[in-house]
């Protein structure tokens, strides 16, 4: 994680559940407002708690381990898990493997879908009105907050071994 220049940082405490990130993501990737194909989704809980969820770009990605054709690869420079759609053969093992359900498959386009951080300028962060999603330099402070978020995750789903 420390290798990235910028990090997509999600602060769920700030999320107001408006879903703008989903719209921004889908318009950026498929050219239409369609939250169902967005690579980020806001999960809304009671008491106004909302959690935006996108690919965590794992250090040891289950999806990459499952991919037999090299369509999914972790870029050692940016730390992102990227998709080469042309190499995908549609076995969907990445979907089966991801412990967080952050990768989906578009059967019509025969392409897997996941967050690619828009190649360096994530639309979700740009349009988030509450700054719940930010794209920040990977300095110590950001990394600390990211780790805090990860700890929050880990405490809740200790049953998932990642």
């Amino acid at each position, binding site marked *: 994680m420390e290798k990235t220049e910028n990090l997509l940082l999600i602060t769920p405490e700030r999320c107001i559940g408006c879903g703008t990130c989903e719209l921004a993501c889908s318009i950026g990737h498929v050219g239409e407002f369609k939250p169902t194909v967005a690579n980020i989704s806001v999960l809304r809980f*009671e008491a106004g708690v909302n*959690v935006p969820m996108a690919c965590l770009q794992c250090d040891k990605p289950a999806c990459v381990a*499952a991919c037999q054709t090299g369509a999914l690869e972790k870029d050692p420079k940016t730390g992102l898990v990227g998709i080469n759609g042309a190499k995908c*053969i549609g076995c969907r093992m990445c979907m*089966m493997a991801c*412990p967080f359900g952050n990768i989906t498959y578009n059967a019509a386009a025969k392409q897997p879908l996941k967050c690619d951080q828009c190649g360096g300028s994530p639309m979700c962060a740009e349009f988030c009105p509450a700054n719940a999603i930010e794209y920040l330099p990977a300095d110590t402070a950001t990394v600390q907050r990211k780790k805090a978020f990860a700890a*929050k995750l880990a405490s809740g789903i200790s*049953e998932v071994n990642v």
Partner: protein
Amino acid sequence: MVEVTIDGQKIEVEKGTTALEAARSLGIEIPTLCYHEGLPPDGNCRLCQVEVTDARGRTNLVISCMYPIKGPVEIRTDTERVRDARAFVVKLLLARSPHSPVLQHLAEEYGVEPLDARFVPEDETDLCIRCGRCVRACATLGNNCIEFVWRGWEKEVNTPFKEPSNSCIGCGACAQVCPTGAIRVTEDETTRTIWDRTFDLVACERCGVRFATPEQLKVVSPEFKPVDGRVLCPRCRKLEEARAVASGLGAQEEN
């Protein structure tokens, strides 16, 4: 590095790069059916033919997906000879699968006359062009359930002895990579059928959606499986993950 000329454009490529890869990196379109970037090339469909002139001035038609560039050659992708060769390939493929929309489209592009109606059996439903993409996809996944069987006109892709394969995991990758849509996967709410084998789909323990075959889930490396053994669909995994964060923020458990 070798410098090659493709349709008049010069490009430096790594030795061993195929002519197809080099051409595509320049944005030159070469039609392919059996080639797939994620699979080893096999040169079965013969559609990606190009003309290559080597350093000694000899010109040959080669299969660009299987032609590794070793020296400074000149490649031409749109000469009359190339178009003729491709048209011939399309004509033969069309004779095999006259009702394939993909081939009909190619025939139109290469000016191939549709087959005389007398030679088109009305009940001809075979869309398979024997390109072997499905075979290679299955082998790449390590399952090896399908292979070419028989010879000549009777050659086809099938499971051993045409029986439902025991090693098939029902992932459907063969159907996904098929360029002509010849492989059928049928799915209803509780089962998926492919290659004459019917799989009972596993239900998500949270929402009940049936989302995968048990064999598919078995293939997932044990280190990424949930320790408590709960089987959740991707949607519910995401929801559980979010719930974990939400409960950390003080939200009550809901439903």
